[in-house]
């Protein structure tokens, strides 16, 4: 069975879907591995490095894809690439199927079995395949570095001969994987960190990193227990949440937003007026910009300034820590792949939660529900 690692073509996509280490693992599990020449370059991996672990190097995309059984990528494949893929092949990348509908259709038209690393279920067992975690973790880390570099102020407290510098105030909205790592990194740099998330169990996790959790009083006058969570997203709760965030955001130097509800556009947490209530020189890093942004003013992929507040909508932070991002992503993919491979062949056990969960097209059908719903709505 032949696995193909393509070179990424998207701008700034420095990652690669396999490293020499994972190529070794794949070969060990019975696959033949072809790598497109230059695929690892942006991650400082040479063709020779791949050759050393017995991968075959192809410089022509048409020939590398000929007879391919599984195609591995980071970003979604382009139309040109898909056209060169054999029918009924398998394909894995880190794609957001509910948004990239054109791409899904193209794959489906060729009856390609598509897997998205985005769709790997977040179960205990699948953690070593959870590319979302491994990449969001990098995003959280990097967002703080970038945010701190944007800031016109120091992060830590410093008492010096020329006066005392107070610590920067950092606010993290959404404390998933990215948010938690952002908290940890900002804490490391000495900032005063606060965080907010709608899931109440996150409070303990935020505090386990030494940061403060912003609590929005939940309605205990109009009935606790009446379906707890549902209640909490009530209009009233949302208003109180807004007020609370506004109050804290006005005092913050750096705001990092990571709020996301899977498969839906990012929730709007920072409307224009909140931005205008911030101090000049403050910075917002919107990690959700890819999904529309948590801030009203975010422009996807752009760094803008509004009333002295920098709003950074940079996409794809992980690609800027490419060596480790590639290493982790490749490991996620190879774990997933070897999990599916039995005796050198793909063993698509559709009862398996992980396999069926990650699959979005198969035998000419769109198997992922939300995606097919989105296609239908289109």
């Amino acid at each position, binding site marked *: 069975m032949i696995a193909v690692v393509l070179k990424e073509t998207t701008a700034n996509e420095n990652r690669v879907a396999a490293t020499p280490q994972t190529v070794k693992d794949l070969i060990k599990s019975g696959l033949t591995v072809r790598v497109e020449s230059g695929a690892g370059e942006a991650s400082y991996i040479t063709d020779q490095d791949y050759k050393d672990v017995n991968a075959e190097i192809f410089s022509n995309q048409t020939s590398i894809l000929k007879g391919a059984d599984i195609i591995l990528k980071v970003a979604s494949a382009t139309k040109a690439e898909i056209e060169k893929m054999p029918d009924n092949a398998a394909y894995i990348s880190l794609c957001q199927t509910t948004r990239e509908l054109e791409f899904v259709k193209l794959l489906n038209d060729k009856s390609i079995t598509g897997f998205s690393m985005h769709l790997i279920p977040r*179960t*205990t*067992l699948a*953690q*070593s395949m959870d590319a979302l*975690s*491994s990449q969001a*973790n990098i995003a959280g880390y990097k967002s703080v570095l970038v945010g701190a570099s944007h800031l016109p102020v120091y992060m830590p407290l410093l008492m010096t001969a020329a006066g005392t510098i107070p610590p920067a105030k950092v606010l993290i909205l959404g404390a998933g*994987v990215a948010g*938690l*790592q952002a908290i*940890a990194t900002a*804490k*490391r740099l000495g900032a005063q960190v606060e965080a907010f998330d709608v899931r109440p169990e996150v409070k*303990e*996790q935020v*505090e*386990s*990193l*030494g940061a403060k959790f912003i609590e929005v009083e939940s309605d205990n006058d109009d009935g606790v227990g009446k379906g707890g969570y549902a209640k909490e997203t009530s209009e009233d709760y949302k208003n109180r949440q807004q007020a609370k965030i506004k109050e804290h955001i006005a005092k913050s130097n750096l705001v990092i937003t990571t709020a996301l509800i899977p498969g839906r556009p990012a929730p709007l947490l920072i409307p224009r007026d909140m931005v205008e209530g911030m101090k000049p020189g403050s910075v917002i890093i919107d990690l959700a910009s890819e999904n529309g942004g948590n801030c009203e003013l975010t422009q996807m992929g752009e760094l803008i300034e509004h009333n002295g507040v920098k709003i950074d909508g940079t996409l794809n932070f992980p690609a800027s820590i490419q060596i480790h991002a590639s290493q982790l992503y490749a490991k996620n993919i190879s774990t997933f792949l070897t999990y599916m491979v039995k005796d050198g062949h793909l063993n698509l056990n559709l009862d398996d939660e992980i396999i069926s969960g990650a699959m979005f097209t198969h035998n000419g059908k769109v198997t992922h529900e939300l995606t097919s719903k989105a296609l239908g709505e289109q």
Partner: protein
Amino acid sequence: MQYTNIAYVLAAVLFILGIKKLSSPKTARTGNTISSIGMLIAIIATLISFELLDFKIIALGMIIGAIIGAIFAIRVEMTQMPQMVAIFNGFGGGASALVAAAEFFTKYGTSEQTMFLTGTIILSVFVGTLTLTGSFIAFGKLQGFISGQPIVFPGQKILNAFLALSLLGLGTFVTISGIQDLNMFYGIIIIAALLGVTLTIPIGGADMPVVISLLNSYSGIAAASTGFVLMNNALIISGALVGASGFILTSIMCKGMNRSLTNVIFGAVGLQNDSSGGEAKQINYKSSTTDEAAMIMDAADKVIIVPGYGLAVAQAQHAVREVAEQLEAMGKKVLYAIHPVAGRMPGHMNVLLAEANVPYEQLKDLDEINSEFEDCDVAIVLGANDVVNPAARHDTSSPIYGMPILDVDKSRTVIINKRTMNPGFAGIQNELFGFENSIMVFGDAKEMLTALHKDLKELS
């Protein structure tokens, strides 16, 4: 006579030193030897001083006693130690009672039967007999001859009170009036024997050690009062020593078990038995204190620390480093086993331990550490749960089946700290907690580690 007494004083001094040394793990064995030498000196001195003793009878008695004692002591399994102590103790109490009784029969009706003598004899007979029967019941319970469960019946307390009062009344009456009737003396013996039974029977297995310790203290009192009967310094000092130290030991044990001493004395203990069972129905675990954990770690050469989410929740990163440093200062090898998904975000444990300045070299990841557990004396699991759940290895039905875990159960002893028996992130029970080599130490990780640190320091 002069020399005998000097020998007695010497014996007493050796007993004091012996007990002192027994209370520290480093010197305990020497202490026991010292005490036994003291005993030998006392016996030899006694034998020499009474030139006309009937050596045959004494030798006979001592040989029989020594053989029985030695057989018991050698044969007994380690797990049966407590009942052995109980039964030996009973014999000691019995001996005191017998000696006093012998003296009673000799002096009975003679002019030597003073009030003081009668009083001390009765005290000695009473306490000695109570010790004898009480110890036997304790032995029976622990050995399984009698149900280990508390045996309770209505009116038990009233019965006890009645027995105790009548004993007191009878004793006082007899002492003051001088004994009129041998039946009264027998009555006292019978009531004391009964009281020994009724006081011990309602106590559950878990609380037995406290009771044995108390009975031990009683046998000291019996010996001391026999000393008064015979006007013998050796018995008085040694008996008082054992009585007092046993009493203190009892209260230390009570404190350790969160019981009040009066409860134990008045037989109200053991009505609830919390050392097994608990929230997790199927898992039968052993729970202990930080002192015990410290003792176990003191004897270890290699300790592996397994941090989990609970350590982060407790913000115990500094506390764990302190404990590790203490262990290293005690000459032990210390490693940290970092499971890749411990905590709630990738690298959670790294962030935590880096903050506390734990040297990177001590942090080992799953692949590196799993081979280290085999020759590890103690693995200490701090607020981790899923990442050490052996179900992942063998239970195909478990939601975590197939996840690589830290093989902490391979190490000689596993000490597990968490607050309750509640499950972790994956929401499943952990059979590890019930393993033979596992010990739970409940509590918040920071508090537990702080206490452990203190206890370790005391041992070093």
